[in-house]
């Protein structure tokens, strides 16, 4: 007999070993997320995918699906709180969507739209962050880093390199690269590496490609992130 969980009242099947987000995605249910990526080891840090499992908040990307779980995902309360968590990310760094070349392709921006975020709500930190433009083909704009570690994981798990890492503690967390000079140009990163393309925001960009796809024709210009996200996984499977 197939094992099942219930999400917002719908019964969906799961396989042993699946996380809640994996089971949900397979069933066509979108759970907002930023640090989660189906191809990499779950991280559980952004907390956007928080769902309520039998009365307790859990990260859907790390928590295993188990028989008998009654899960709330699309509740008003969760969506409102996810919006606030997204606003936290916006005020922590320096995100100016209109002047960012990632606009329209940015998951942070798209999640914010999805959650109906209309302002930043919290006072901005105006953190002083640097740009590392040393690499011939890849740029790091630390202003936009949200510490999701997707570049760290992609470099390690997919590219077989160790280009990126997160260092520091608390609000002083920051992305570092694996070079004695601390500069991207002195790492073994290549523009073809997945790590250079995986950033959900505009923190890691490929140089000279900014407007190849014009604004208005980008991933999230005509579709919400839930549709894009679910389509992506289902295309991969086929």
């Amino acid at each position, binding site marked *: 007999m197939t094992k099942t969980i219930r999400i917002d009242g719908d019964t969906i099947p799961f396989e042993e070993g699946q996380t809640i987000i994996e089971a949900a995605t397979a069933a066509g249910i979108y759970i907002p997320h930023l640090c989660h990526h189906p191809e990499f080891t779950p991280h559980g840090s952004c907390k956007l995918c928080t769902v309520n499992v039998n009365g307790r908040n859990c990260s859907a990307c790390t928590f295993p699906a188990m028989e008998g779980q009654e899960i709330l995902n699309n509740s008003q309360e969760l969506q409102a709180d996810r919006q606030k968590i997204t606003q936290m990310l916006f005020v*922590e760094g320096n995100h100016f969507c209109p002047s960012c070349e990632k606009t329209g392709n940015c998951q942070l921006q798209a999640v914010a739209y999805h959650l109906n975020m209309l302002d930043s709500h919290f006072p901005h930190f105006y953190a002083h962050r640097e740009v590392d433009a040393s690499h011939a083909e890849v740029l790091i704009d630390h202003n936009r880093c949200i510490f999701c570690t997707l570049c760290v994981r992609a470099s390690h798990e997919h590219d077989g390199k160790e280009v990126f890492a997160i260092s*520091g503690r608390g609000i002083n967390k920051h992305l570092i690269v694996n070079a004695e000079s601390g500069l991207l140009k002195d790492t073994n990163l290549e523009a073809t590496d997945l790590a250079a393309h995986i950033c959900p925001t505009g923190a890691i960009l490929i140089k000279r490609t900014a407007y190849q796809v014009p604004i208005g024709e980008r991933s999230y210009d005509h579709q919400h992130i839930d549709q894009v996200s679910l389509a992506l996984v289902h295309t991969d499977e086929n």
Partner: protein
Amino acid sequence: MQAFVNHLATENQYQSTHLLRILHAIQARYHYIPESAIEQLAPLLNITRTQIIGVIEFYSFFHLTARGRYELLISDSITDHLVGKQALTDYLSTKLHVAVGEVRADGLVSLDNTSCTGLCDQGPAGLVNGYALPHLDHARIDQISELINQEIPIELWPSELFQVDDHIVKPGLLLSHPLTPGDALQSMFNRGLTATLAELDASGLRGRGGAGFKTASKWHYCRDESESERYVICNADEGEPGTFKDRVLLNSYAQQVFEGMTVCAAIIGAQQGFLYLRGEYLFLYEKLQQILAERRQLGLLGNNILNSDIHFDIDICLGAGAYICGEESALIESLEGKMGIPRNRPPYPVTQGYLGKPTVVNNVETFLAAAAIAHLGGQWFATIGTEKSKGTKILSISGDCARPGIYEYAFGTSIETILSDCGAEELLGVQIGGPSGLFISEQELQRKLAFEDLATGGSFIIFNKHRNLLEIVNNFTRFFAHESCGFCTPCRVGTSLLKNQLAKIVEGHGSAGDVVALEELCALVKNYSHCGLGQTAANPIMSTLARFPELYQSRLKNISYEPGFDLDAALETARQLANRNDAAAHLTQVEQD
């Protein structure tokens, strides 16, 4: 330096799990971790330089830039503030010509704040090159300044400067009758391992760190895992401000704590144990090593313990200034030579702990009690306390009372009794369980010390009526923002937002909506954070807001709106550039009514 780093790597068998130990040695010698040491160490330990940099930047006691040859840290715990920490730090700063947070130009001395040093009963306290300096006063600061200016090596400083007292005021069930080394192990072997676990179960002992998980169940789960390798860890990273009982237990009852760990090892089948000692307790390190050596001599550690077929040994690992490592999975990460970031759970440490193997992590006091139970049986313990909280609890009492120190009480004792014993007068309230616990007011003194009422890891800070409650809450809230590991968004960003939002109100810049905004933020941080740190970081605000709402309201401006943006502060750079500071160079935020 190259030879030194090489030697360290060899001495540590090139194990990356020993990274903190190696960094401690480099930091002690050079007062920072030089870049060349990182470059040399990475290949020797077969880890990336980024892992080493990450660890250095994570822990407060490691630095990428040089500190003074005498590194002075002054405890920023509220208990130190109550006894004049601020004025003393200012005095020290003037005396030594070094600003807080800086290194003196000649590189001789640096001065900074640090989180609670666990000397709350004998503050104001500090650390010099990691070693505890209790009872600071003007005379001692004069003396210390003189010693530093004359560049006298710390080993030659008068020993009374480093004299840390136990202050056991009220010993009870456990503290009155320390075991003779070997007694618990002998009783356990006589009774049998399974029967001893049954005694532990019957005793009802629950974890003394505060969470209160049943100890026997934890050991059971770990024993039942189908792995051949298991570990025992004693969590001596007591970083909760106001807690110092583990300091005393390890100073005067270490034999029994180690014996408790050995009992656990025998029962679950572990061959290796670790004592994770907080960096602030460096002064106990050598003494504890000697006790371990003694136990090996007595056949109580090592191979064939008391001629049985049990083999077990204990290693001591020093933390490096990170409160979060008191969280068991963060502690395990730290033991593995990494940043102390709490793991995702499940899996729990009993199934996948140190190096992915089943691991029991217990508090110092839990092991102390477990040893006594192994010797005297479960019933002896279970008859004391309440139905759900058996036995006694050891408290660290500090703050506004006549007799700060260590007190042991049967569970179920009322707060009133405790306050009367320690001589608390003109009470405002008590912070129970440290900043992550609960503030109770003088209206609630009939409440009881028990898991079912006031659960606590043992921190008990008393405040009298002359104290400014909002300053206290401010101190606690700053503490959490400083100690957040930064892994998850709600805690990383949220604790700093809480700090700023509270400061806005305390400093008198808040208006009508600001308390509501504060409450909303508290709920968010509490409900969505990854681990206990974030889930409890808003407790000081929430528990005082519930009891003293008028206190917060009284700080608000009588205007409907105050921008979060400080107009006048934003002009500071312009004022400096124009070299002006007259009235016309300042802006009032919003015209007052």
